[in-house]
């Protein structure tokens, strides 16, 4: 199992938080780094996309998004019925797990890169596409029966949210500019990517540390969920990727996307759309457990699954 040093930065941040270090990364640095990462991922995907006929992506995209909806649809009853979480909380957590984590995706790409494995560049398109639908579904699950949901503002909140705007904007710019057009920007957006990711993970570690308290209160059920859900999602993604004929790298990335839980777009949207849901639960699970779980355990497992099932399915 090869070793990915950026994860050590997450561990350092976590440790600093746990020993109550006075190390604090200012909130604006978090903002600036997340803008950088979203834009860089979008650009990279866009450049790759410029080499492909976009039309061939429509069908796989529909399949990828359609199958992904199984995740919140399964997670919701598990949490609501089995876990006895209130409807709002179950729906909100389900939305987080149905949506995707950009940073987990970045670490997985980086993992592939350091192994020298390739993957379809258009996986970023799926990343952008997967962000929204689970959130909408989550709101619908929370609001079932209620008729007063104001969908307009919600859709605006997510579609005009910074993660979609930057991912989609980056995709478009990369696609329009192409490999040669983007080259003068490579020194910032590609060469610095991994170092910036390391910084961001340091911050994520600090943030995750401050969420550990929430988790203790959340109970064992959510803890188990936060590890079994990504494994199941990862398997679903790997199988879907194999059936769609992706490369091993692409299969592994789709597994990671399905397995990952959102903590940028989903928390902000659910906070407004389903205010009665407790954000400590959803963010605690997604960021406190699933995120580090995927970094340490998940990504190698999805890669292993991909190598095992690729070609077989």
């Amino acid at each position, binding site marked *: 199992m090869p070793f990915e040093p950026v994860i050590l930065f997450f561990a350092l941040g976590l440790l600093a938080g746990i020993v109550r270090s006075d190390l604090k990364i200012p909130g604006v640095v*978090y903002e600036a780094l997340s803008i950088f990462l979203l834009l860089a991922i979008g650009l990279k995907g866009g450049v790759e996309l410029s080499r492909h006929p976009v039309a061939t992506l429509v069908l796989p995209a529909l399949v990828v998004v359609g199958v992904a909806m199984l995740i919140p649809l399964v997670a919701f009853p598990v949490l609501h019925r089995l876990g006895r979480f209130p409807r709002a909380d179950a729906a909100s957590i389900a939305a987080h797990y149905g949506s995707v984590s950009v940073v987990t995706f970045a670490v997985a790409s980086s993992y592939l890169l350091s192994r020298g494995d390739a993957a379809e560049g258009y996986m970023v398109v799926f990343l952008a596409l997967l962000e929204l639908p689970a959130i909408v579904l989550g709101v619908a699950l929370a609001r079932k029966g209620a008729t007063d949901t104001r969908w307009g503002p919600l859709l605006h909140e997510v579609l005009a949210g910074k993660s979609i705007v930057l991912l989609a904007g980056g995709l478009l710019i990369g696609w329009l500019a192409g490999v040669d057009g983007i080259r003068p920007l490579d020194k910032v957006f590609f060469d610095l990517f991994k170092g910036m990711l390391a910084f961001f993970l340091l911050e994520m570690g600090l*943030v995750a540390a401050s969420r550990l308290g929430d988790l203790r209160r959340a109970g064992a059920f959510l803890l188990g969920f936060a590890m079994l859900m990504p494994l199941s999602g990862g398997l679903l993604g790997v199988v879907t990727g194999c059936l769609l004929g992706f490369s091993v790298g692409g299969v592994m990335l789709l597994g990671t996307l399905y397995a990952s839980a959102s903590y940028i777009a989903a928390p*902000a949207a659910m906070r407004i759309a389903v205010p009665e849901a407790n954000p400590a639960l959803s963010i605690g699970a997604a960021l406190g457990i699933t995120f580090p779980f995927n970094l340490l355990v998940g990504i190698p497992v999805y890669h292993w699954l991909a190598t095992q099932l690729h070609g077989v399915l």
Partner: protein
Amino acid sequence: MNLPLTLRKLVTVICEADLEAHLVADLTQLGVRGYTITDARGSGAHGPRDAAWRASANIRVELLCDEAMAQQVAETLHERYYAHYGMVMFITDAAVLRPQKFSR
């Protein structure tokens, strides 16, 4: 005193940063003519909020207005947000130079 001072109300609201756009929309809809926002962190019934990222950041909104508007703002925010959001509101008297600027 040479410059005449008139009493108005200063409404201060401390809440989750995620609410900013919604709060501003509410205030505008109520006909408020001005407000001031600063970034904040803190702690309260909803636990510590350290502003390390947006999901744990607070804002502090200040609003000079007349008593009727203060009451209306308090009612509206109380109704829309108190149940589910971290929010604290308090009202003090403040002397201003141009009372008509803070009336309606």
